[in-house]
């Protein structure tokens, strides 16, 4: 994948254009346009039920859209593509769930390193080292071998989730 080439032509990491989505007759997203640049931090706020989560979930295609274009690094996410291609694309988009959805059967470090190993075929030792470095950055290195249930608070989970998703940004 020629990531550096496309990002040179496309300064925006995420581009949302004219996105429309409805559940049956009930429109949820009405002509949304937005751009997120590389390294930019964007906050979406609004009352509950206004479609914030739905919009975010469309960015890695956990939700389908009715019309419009969402592109990530210049690649149209909602274009017809093979599942394998979509999985690879998703593996490059960080995503922390509202309730984190950490995997309770894996230790903290395994939660962070599993997807690089299983999806991208990174060597386990290498993925493990990288995961430990990222956990250290969010101050969780001491809990690397604990399991999520024992690792502590919601805030810990959030930092953990962030580390898990940062691991993919380093490619």
């Amino acid at each position: 994948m020629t990531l550096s080439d496309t990002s040179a032509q496309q300064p925006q990491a995420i581009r949302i254009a004219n996105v429309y989505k409805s559940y049956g007759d009930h429109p949820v997203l009405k002509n949304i346009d937005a751009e997120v640049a590389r390294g930019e931090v964007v906050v979406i706020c609004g009352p509950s039920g206004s479609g914030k989560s739905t919009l975010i979930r469309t960015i890695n295609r956990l939700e389908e859209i009715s019309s419009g274009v969402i592109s990530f690094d210049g690649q149209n996410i909602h274009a017809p593509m093979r599942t394998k291609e979509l999985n690879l694309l998703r593996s490059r988009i960080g995503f922390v769930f509202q309730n984190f959805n950490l995997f309770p059967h894996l230790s903290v470090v395994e939660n962070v390193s599993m997807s690089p190993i299983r999806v991208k075929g990174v060597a386990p030792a290498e993925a493990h080292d990288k995961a430990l470095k990222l956990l250290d950055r969010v101050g969780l290195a001491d809990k690397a071998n604990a399991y999520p249930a024992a690792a502590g608070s919601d805030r810990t989970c959030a930092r953990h989730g962030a580390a898990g998703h940062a691991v993919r940004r380093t490619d």
Partner: protein
Amino acid sequence: MISDITAIISDYWLLLLIGQYPNGPLGGLANTLILSAFSIALAFPVSILFALARLSKWRLLRWPVTALVYVTRGVPLLMLILWSYFLVPLWTGADVPSFVTMLTTLVVYQGAFLSEVVRGGIVALGHGQMEAAKALGHSYLGAMRFVILPQALYNMIPSIISTFVSTIKDTTLGYVINVPDLTFAASQVNNQLLTQPFQVFLILAVVYYAICWSLTHVANVIERRITRRRAGLTDRAKPVSLAMSKIVSEQP
């Protein structure tokens, strides 16, 4: 009474243990254990495949397996055994050994029951874990293998073990199609003695109880070990003070 039992055991232990072997087919306890082990070892993966087929979005997979599960659950095992024993040779002309007939029937029967347990475990996990796995780029099967099944199967250990135990007990039904298992050996002993059915079948009951109890015990040990590991109790690091770290909560 007890002297009767020890006398029966000392006279017939070899028949109860290995049947007529080496002068005839392997039977007795050995055959019961082999039949049980094969049934469980085959029914378990079959049940996972059945469960995945039942949850599949493709009707071609979902419908036949659903029909199979419903039919199998609605028919007594004894009936299925007799059907496969009499009908398979009639239809195919093949001479199927009764051991194979029994094994196949048990695998399909227990596989169907177990598949509902596995399916229940998967459905009970909810969408969150599957979505999280997808967001990480896992394929459906990858998510199942690394995220969903390890949790679903662990949660279902008690029900899975119940099904395993009932599989072992169901091997006794092989007796009706002349599978020379422990029950078969015991009834041979009973036919020779004629006057001590209570003692003979008490031995039988005790042996089955010992096998089934051992399996349950092993499962409990495994379950407890996994639970302790996930709760972080076997972690060598100092126990984390949960009370301290629970102060901040950003989520409702």
